[in-house]
């Protein structure tokens, strides 16, 4: 019995292996053959897509961390392009993107495109040798972005990935009603913000702050943002850049002081975690759920990036007199002018089939950026070709003006620039342990410094 059974298993395994091999090879050849069709002239509404024509019936795959409903708007923004050119863009979003992408790429199963939100991850992907340099059209489109963005999409001076979006992290979401009831004005300075928090806490109704750093395997990232806001707002861009390069270590007095400031803010038991639990509950609350108590009147404020607008349930009025609104997080040190911490998403290609290049060119153009801005609010581009009057939403207008403001102290998210072992590894882990287990600042910073690759 046993011997016969084993015989049956071996062929089955072989068959599976063969099937996999066959489908892989035919998939590859089918794709490259698709680009050789001749371009038919596009007419009417489709005429604008003429430069990208000639690849009808092809398909490109895209993998990213953007989930529905945000990703629905993304798919809508290129629906016309797809319809007119016949290039199908098959989009897949994953909560686990940061760890799945390297697995897929090193496993020889890379998507055609990945929307990478972290320059550090982009650098790691370039290291694998699988990222394909962008075509000339994309490089030309890049001129519409300010030069600093090109450096964030480059690795060792070589440009690889064009930015698709920019987001502003230095925002505080708040409940205008709670503020009004408590007689609080929108804070203009850090001292005002702390005084307002204290006033709300003493009033005893809603707690001043909400927070959540849970995010699947990326748990901890919102806490890195909080620390970065404080470092940038306390010491300005120069120290921030040195910190990113590990010339200023985490155990440096500057950073530990910043952590104490953060502890006094988001680890203050009297201030957090409105409607959810104690300080520790910040570690188990997902960042998506963190803002919900604001609508229920359980807390007043949440520090989170501009993209958080998409997290509010349908029908929530986002306005100065609405259910929620946002203000610019003031600098800890008033001497630092307009600190703006931002992020962005970069489109990296893992294949150079003609239809992939066509999509890459289109998605780096200001036409696409405008199309995405028009589709729905909650998406900001720092592309100068986008007409600012297209932004209908006050949050987007605020973000767009700050992101393109020449006097602002703009810096990219530090943990996204640090090596993955720190920025998407130890720093997430250690800051989570800091919130969840009350580990000492000394231990947290020593652990993060030790994780820096040699």
């Amino acid at each position, binding site marked *: 019995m*046993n011997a016969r059974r084993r*015989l049956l298993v*071996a*062929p089955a*395994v*072989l*068959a599976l*292996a*063969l*099937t996999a*091999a*066959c*489908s892989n090879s*035919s998939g590859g050849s*089918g794709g490259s053959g*698709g680009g050789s*069709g001749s371009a038919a002239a596009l007419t009417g509404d489709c005429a604008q897509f003429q430069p990208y024509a000639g690849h*009808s*019936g092809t*398909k490109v795959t895209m993998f990213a961390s953007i989930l529905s409903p945000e990703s629905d708007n993304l798919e809508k923004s290129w629906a016309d392009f797809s319809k007119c050119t*016949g290039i199908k863009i098959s989009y897949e979003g994953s909560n686990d993107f*940061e*760890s799945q992408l*390297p*697995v897929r790429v*090193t496993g020889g199963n890379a998507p055609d495109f990945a929307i990478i939100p972290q320059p550090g991850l982009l650098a*790691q992907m370039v*290291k694998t040798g699988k990222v394909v340099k962008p075509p000339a059209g994309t490089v030309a489109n890049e001129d519409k972005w300010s030069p600093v963005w090109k450096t964030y999409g480059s690795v060792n001076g070589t440009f690889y990935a064009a930015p698709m979006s920019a987001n502003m992290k230095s925002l505080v979401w708040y409940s205008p009603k709670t503020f009004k009831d408590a007689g609080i004005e929108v804070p203009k300075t850090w001292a005002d913000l702390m005084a307002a928090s204290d006033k709300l806490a003493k009033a005893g109704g809603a707690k001043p702050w909400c927070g959540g750093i849970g995010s*699947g*395997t990326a*748990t*901890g990232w919102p806490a890195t943002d909080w620390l970065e806001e404080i470092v940038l707002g306390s010491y300005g861009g120069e120290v921030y850049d040195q910190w990113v390069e590990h010339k200023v270590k985490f155990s440096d007095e500057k950073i530990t002081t910043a952590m104490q400031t953060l502890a006094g803010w988001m680890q203050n038991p009297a201030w957090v975690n409105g*409607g*959810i*639990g*104690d300080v*520790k*509950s910040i*570690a*188990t609350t997902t960042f998506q759920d963190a803002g919900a108590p604001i609508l229920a009147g359980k807390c007043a404020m949440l520090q989170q990036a501009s993209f958080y607008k998409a997290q509010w349930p349908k029908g929530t009025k986002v306005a100065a007199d609405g259910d929620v609104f946002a203000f610019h997080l003031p600098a800890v040190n008033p001497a630092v002018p307009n600190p703006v911490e931002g992020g962005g998403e970069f489109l990296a290609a893992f294949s150079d089939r003609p239809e992939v290049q066509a999509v890459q060119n289109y998605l780096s153009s200001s036409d696409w950026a405008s199309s995405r801005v028009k589709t729905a609010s909650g998406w900001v581009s720092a592309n100068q070709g986008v007409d600012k009057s297209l932004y209908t939403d006050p949050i987007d207008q605020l973000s767009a003006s700050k992101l393109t403001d020449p006097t602002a102290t703009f810096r990219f998210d530090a943990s996204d620039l640090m090596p*993955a*072992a720190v920025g*998407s*590894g*130890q720093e997430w*882990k250690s800051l*989570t*342990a800091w919130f*969840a*287990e009350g580990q000492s600042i000394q231990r947290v910073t020593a*652990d993060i410094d*030790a*994780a820096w*690759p*040699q």
Partner: protein
Amino acid sequence: MSVTRALLADGAWTDASVKLGNMVGAVAGFLGILLVIFFVAGRASGRIARPLAVVLFLGPAVLLLIVGLVAPLVRTVYLSFYNDDGTKFLGGKNYGWALTTESVQHVLLNTLLWLAVAPLAATGLGLLLALLIDRVRGQAVYKSLIFMPMAISLVGASIIFKFVYDARDVSQSQIGLMSQLAISLGWHHPPNWMLSQPLNTFLLMVVMVWVQTGFAMVVLSAAINAIPDEVTEAARLDGAGGVKLFWFVTVPMIRTTLVVVLTTVMITTLKAFDIVRTMTGGNFGTQVLANEMYSQSFVQFNTGRGSALAVILFLGVLPLVAYNILQLRKERAVR
């Protein structure tokens, strides 16, 4: 060609049909190759018949083993002596890191804890259920109910239990079963379960036990039923009953099966990373070796450290697998 391509592209299921075609083709090709091999093997006679059969039947399996198992193993061991991207030889530094870093020591300790508790609990519970349910009417129904979690992936089971353990402020309405039960029983401030160390590690083990108990029960129940009635009757005539019968007759008679079940669950436990990954992401002091290895290798790109952890894990599983095979052979020899 281009017309058919365009026509095909319109159908939403083109992709699927192409893949299906590929698969059918592959299976047909495979069967064809097999037929040829069998035909050749059948025609061969005399002295080469036996060696040819050995090569033909063993060859593919050995080849697949080398490609899929031996080569990666060698490469993993090699990488474990190198730095994060495999460019600088470090000697035993990665192993030193794994054995001396406090956080990794904690991971190893957690893994040992899992290894000690989860398999014993699953096997013990399985044995108890096997003994109890065998005497109940309609045992098949109960058995299938207990076996059912086996059909759920560990990730699915983890998500279910994530809801069970969900904790909210007591002022809110609870969605976590455990918290609600605790509150109903008069506990005014139940803890945030996933944050309470070391309780959380055991709560994660519950998921593993829940999934594996059915397996243990079914296998052990079969072994118990296979004990010859004469043996039990003889023991009863000699005055053994209840607990005595269990310890001196049942357990020794199913000893090899018990060991096989225990080691099989142990191996599953050592490799289990889905539960930890899904429920806590390795945070809050619940990290285990398999998940740490994954996160070092594929999230933080510390290939060297990840490989060192993989080798440690491999060395841990190896004796268990060897013992398991040895017991299986013994069992087969008995039957």
